């Protein structure tokens, strides 16, 4: 008995909570001992055994009562009543499996979609970037709204000025746009994505290399020693994680580089695009004349400096240095905006609005679900009013009844939450494959502790919200009437009906918001995908071939290969036309500086003089279906030994011959003002196609015949009669028949490639449409519930009306009027809310306004239709009321 008091107390509490039976048994025994001793005492006083026993128990005050009092002082006594409520609630739910199933399913849908979308929001928007002290990292850029292609970049003189003159950054680093390298030596040639980074890039991010070191400033200098840093993935895949990798040579585009470092496996390059596999020094030229313009700048703020302050500092530098940029920049610098934003905001910028839109959409779905459950419970309230009246009469305080209702709601929402969580796991797997790739952290999307906590909170909230209305109804004064009259009246009371109608109206309004948003996104998406790319993407197969430099080093070798390939694949069964190119029709090709013969040469590095140049084979225009507007396309005449010719597109004509001069016969100077300058004569003008992003305008373009400007990188384009996929194996065997060591890479249909570009919009549209459909169904169920309850409540009245001569059509009108009133009220409330909320998605819409009247109109029609359909069943029931039955029931 010398145990410390608190330890003993802990033991007792533990036993009370977890060894309930043993504790009860001991209490029983303890009291029995008391009664026995007392009985003996009473017998000794001269009572009969029977009397003695009775007296002992009376004196104690009733064994069961004492037990109850002991239980009441026990630790966690309140849990007992909760458990009791829960057990009773469970029994009630089990007694109504239909109600329970509908409610749990509804909540599971609402909660599951919330969990799944939240897990994406959490991983993409809420998690910190995987760098040291990421809150201080910013992305600084200049925006050139007047530019043709890249509208957001930092010219390197500006980067140098920022780097040398700023007072706000503790470090500032730059990368270029990155490009593909062919990597040779140590295994088969490969095309990999590479990125030029300044020497301090990794230290600004605060990333330590897994092996080796970062670039030195010596390496980060034009003409400095060539070095490379490998991504962990490339080190593993190509070098099998060779521990002696440092110092080994690596051939990038036939240039010998030395491997100086390897990045850790956890490293992610800050991009919303593809991850680079190899890094090389940026080696920005220090002299403005041979500039590379397109830099991306990432900087680390000094402690206490905000992005806005940094912006002010940089703009002061810009005001001194921008005028010093080369003259041709004049056109660009008429309008320049500087922006410094946190790196996190920059990387998530394109997905933030869609993700919050989805989050809002699922929140609406959950709200509608809760309103439905509340309504269902209100209907059931009528059935349970007798039970509550009885319990109330027996002395249960209303607070206890309210707690019972709340417990039941939370039970329901917990079950819904659990089912929703299971659905959420599945949904996350689905989301991970649907979410457009390239979003940083997307591989991290999973249901983790945070998402779990979110689900629990949402479930509890849903329970509280959906339990609120029935509790409100409980406190209406009519409960007393119900007790007194014993009539089932509670849920039919005026305030109750108002509550139910209000819920249905709210559901209609919420569904309208979702439907309009879904409609707008759908319309915008259809607009976007219906934009004519300028060529026919259907039944078009694309593939890439890279000719190894050692085997195909001379133009004749390359031409021989391409003409043989073209002959073979054109003859394949199912192929209507075949063509070769140096770039995909939906991608940018390399730029060349061009001038027109007989005009002054364009300023050095004038961006408007840079025009995409491609080599294409005979058949290219026919294969893509690009019309030749004047002159001719390429054919057999254009060989290596004939005059150099070019086809230009309409945009080129618009830019270089704005005065309506006939371009045919004019000469373009390619690589103007360099030793490589060549003149080619324009023989044809083609229509323009949209190359970057369907939302963008077409760019100028020059085509050369493949035979006159062959390349080792070849894009194969096949126009097929039907689905092009079956042709792939034939294509592959034709390539191998020419050279059995040549791989065919990046085989894809044009439809898939274009779909990939709009994958983000497609995903958001599909998801919001799905949620809107859910909302519509739920709102329909809600209206059905209210109307069918109204009919059941007024069966008697309807019977009397019919007995007094009302026509079926009058009854129908009565019900429909009620229904339309609900829908109309919902729409009236919904319109302003919708107008306010669709504004947030306005920036994501393409070719359709946020308050598009057609979409609003269509949604109104859909909601009214669904509302009427939902009323149809109860309305028919009302029309078929037999007055005799209805009256006899009274």
């Amino acid at each position, binding site marked *: *008995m*010398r*145990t*410390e*008091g*608190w*330890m*003993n*107390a*802990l033991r*007792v*509490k533990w036993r*009370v909570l977890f060894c309930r039976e043993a504790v009860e048994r*001991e*209490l029983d*025994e*303890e*009291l029995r*001992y*008391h009664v*026995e*001793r*007392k009985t003996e005492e009473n017998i000794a006083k001269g009572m009969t055994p029977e009397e003695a026993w009775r007296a002992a128990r009376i*004196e*104690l*005050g*009733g064994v069961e*009562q*004492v037990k109850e*009092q*002991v239980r*009441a*002082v*026990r*630790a966690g006594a309140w849990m007992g009543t909760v458990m009791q409520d829960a057990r009773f609630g469970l029994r009630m739910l089990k007694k109504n499996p239909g109600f329970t199933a509908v409610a749990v399913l509804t909540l599971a849908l609402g909660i599951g979609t919330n969990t799944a979308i939240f897990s994406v929001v959490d991983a993409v928007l809420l998690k910190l970037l995987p760098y040291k002290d990421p809150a201080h990292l910013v992305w600084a850029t200049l925006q050139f709204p007047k530019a043709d292609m890249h509208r957001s970049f930092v010219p390197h003189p500006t980067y140098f000025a920022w780097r040398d003159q700023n007072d706000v950054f503790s470090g500032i680093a730059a990368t270029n746009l990155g490009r593909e390298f062919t990597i040779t030596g140590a295994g088969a040639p490969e095309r990999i994505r590479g990125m030029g980074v300044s020497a301090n890039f990794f230290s600004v991010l605060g990333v330590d290399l897994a092996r080796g070191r970062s670039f030195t400033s010596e390496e980060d200098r034009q003409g400095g020693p060539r070095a490379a840093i490998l991504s962990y993935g490339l080190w593993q895949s190509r070098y099998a994680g060779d521990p002696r990798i440092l110092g080994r040579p690596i051939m990038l585009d036939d240039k010998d580089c030395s491997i100086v470092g390897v990045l850790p496996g956890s490293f992610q390059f800050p991009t919303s695009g593809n991850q680079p596999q190899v890094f090389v020094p940026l080696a920005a030229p220090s002299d403005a004349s041979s500039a590379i313009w397109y830099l991306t700048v990432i900087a680390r703020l000094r402690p206490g400096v905000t992005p806005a302050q940094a912006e002010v500092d940089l703009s002061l530098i810009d005001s001194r240095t921008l005028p010093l940029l080369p003259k041709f920049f004049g056109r660009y610098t008429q309008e320049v905006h500087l922006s410094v934003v946190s790196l996190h905001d920059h990387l998530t910028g394109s997905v933030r609005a869609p993700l919050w839109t989805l989050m809002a959409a699922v929140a609406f779905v959950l709200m509608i679900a809760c309103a439905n459950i509340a309504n269902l419970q209100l209907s059931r309230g009528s059935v349970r009013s007798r039970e509550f009246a009885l319990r109330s009469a027996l002395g249960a305080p209303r607070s206890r009844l309210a707690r019972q209702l709340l417990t039941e709601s939370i039970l329901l929402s917990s079950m819904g939450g659990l089912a929703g969580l299971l659905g959420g796991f599945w949904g996350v797997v689905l989301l991970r494959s649907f979410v457009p790739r390239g979003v940083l952290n997307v591989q991290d999307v999973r249901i983790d502790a945070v998402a779990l906590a979110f689900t629990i909170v949402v479930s509890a909230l849903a329970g509280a919200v959906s339990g609120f209305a029935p509790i409100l109804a409980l406190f209406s004064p009519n409960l007393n009437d119900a007790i007194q009259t014993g009539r089932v009246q509670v849920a039919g009371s005026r305030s109750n009906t108002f509550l139910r109608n209000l819920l249905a109206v709210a559901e209609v309004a919420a569904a309208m918001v979702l439907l309009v948003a879904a409609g707008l996104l759908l319309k915008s998406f259809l607009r976007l995908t219906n934009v004519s790319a300028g060529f026919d993407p259907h039944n078009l197969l694309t593939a890439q071939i890279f000719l190894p430099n050692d085997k195909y080093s001379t133009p004749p070798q390359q031409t021989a290969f391409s003409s043989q390939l073209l002959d073979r694949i054109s003859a394949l069964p199912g192929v209507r036309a075949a063509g070769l190119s140096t770039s995909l029709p939906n991608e940018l090709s390399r730029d060349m500086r061009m001038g027109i013969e007989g005009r002054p040469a364009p300023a050095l590095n004038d961006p408007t003089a840079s025009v995409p140049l491609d080599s294409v084979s005979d058949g290219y225009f026919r294969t893509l279906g690009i019309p030749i507007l004047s002159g001719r396309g390429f054919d057999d005449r254009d060989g290596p030994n004939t005059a150099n010719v070019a086809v230009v597109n309409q945009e080129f004509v618009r830019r270089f011959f704005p005065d309506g001069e006939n371009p045919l016969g004019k000469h373009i100077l390619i690589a103007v003002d360099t030793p490589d300058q060549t003149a080619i004569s324009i023989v044809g003008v083609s229509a323009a196609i949209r190359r970057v992003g369907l939302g963008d305008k077409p760019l100028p373009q020059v085509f050369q015949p493949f035979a006159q400007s062959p390349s080792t990188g070849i894009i194969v384009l096949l126009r097929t009669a039907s689905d092009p996929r079956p042709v792939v194996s034939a294509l592959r065997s034709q390539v191998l028949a020419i050279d059995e060591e040549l791989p065919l890479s990046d085989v894809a249909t044009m439809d898939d490639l274009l779909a990939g570009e709009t994958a983000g919009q497609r995903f958001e549209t599909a998801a919001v449409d799905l949620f809107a459909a859910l909302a519509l169904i739920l709102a329909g169920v809600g209206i059905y519930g209210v109307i069918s309850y109204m009919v059941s409540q007024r069966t008697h009245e309807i019977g009397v009306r019919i007995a007094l001569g009302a026509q079926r059509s009058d009854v129908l009108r009565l019900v429909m009027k009620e229904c339309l009133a609900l829908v109309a009220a919902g729409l009236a409330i919904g319109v302003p809310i919708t107008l306010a909320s669709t504004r947030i998605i306005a920036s994501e819409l393409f070719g359709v306004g946020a308050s598009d009247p057609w979409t609003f109109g269509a949604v109104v029609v859909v909601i009214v239709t669904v509302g009427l359909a939902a009323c149809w069943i109860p309305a028919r029931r009302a029309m078929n009321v037999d007055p005799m039955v209805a009256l006899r029931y009274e």
Partner: protein
Amino acid sequence: MSKPSDLVQGTLDLLLLKILALEPMNGFAIGQRLRQVSGDILQASDGSLYPALHKLEQRGWIASEWKTTENNRRAKFYALTRAGRRQLEKEADNWDRLSAAISRVVNLEET
């Protein structure tokens, strides 16, 4: 019906602690001893003893143990813990102060 309404609120705890400070005892015996020492003036009903005992046990002031009584029957015996002894001293002090204050008030000379 078994609330110790005739006892000053909270004094039952003090009485139980004091009785158990003398020796470990079972519930029945505690009831008997209470009547005995107070000369039947403090009428705590037997039924009110048990909730009070269980409460004290959960607070860690007393501990229980099943033991065999003198006439060979199992009964639950309660004993004071060290924390209980401290509590007893504190409550006894309180009681002394309170009763002294009350008696001073009661004994005020009426003028």
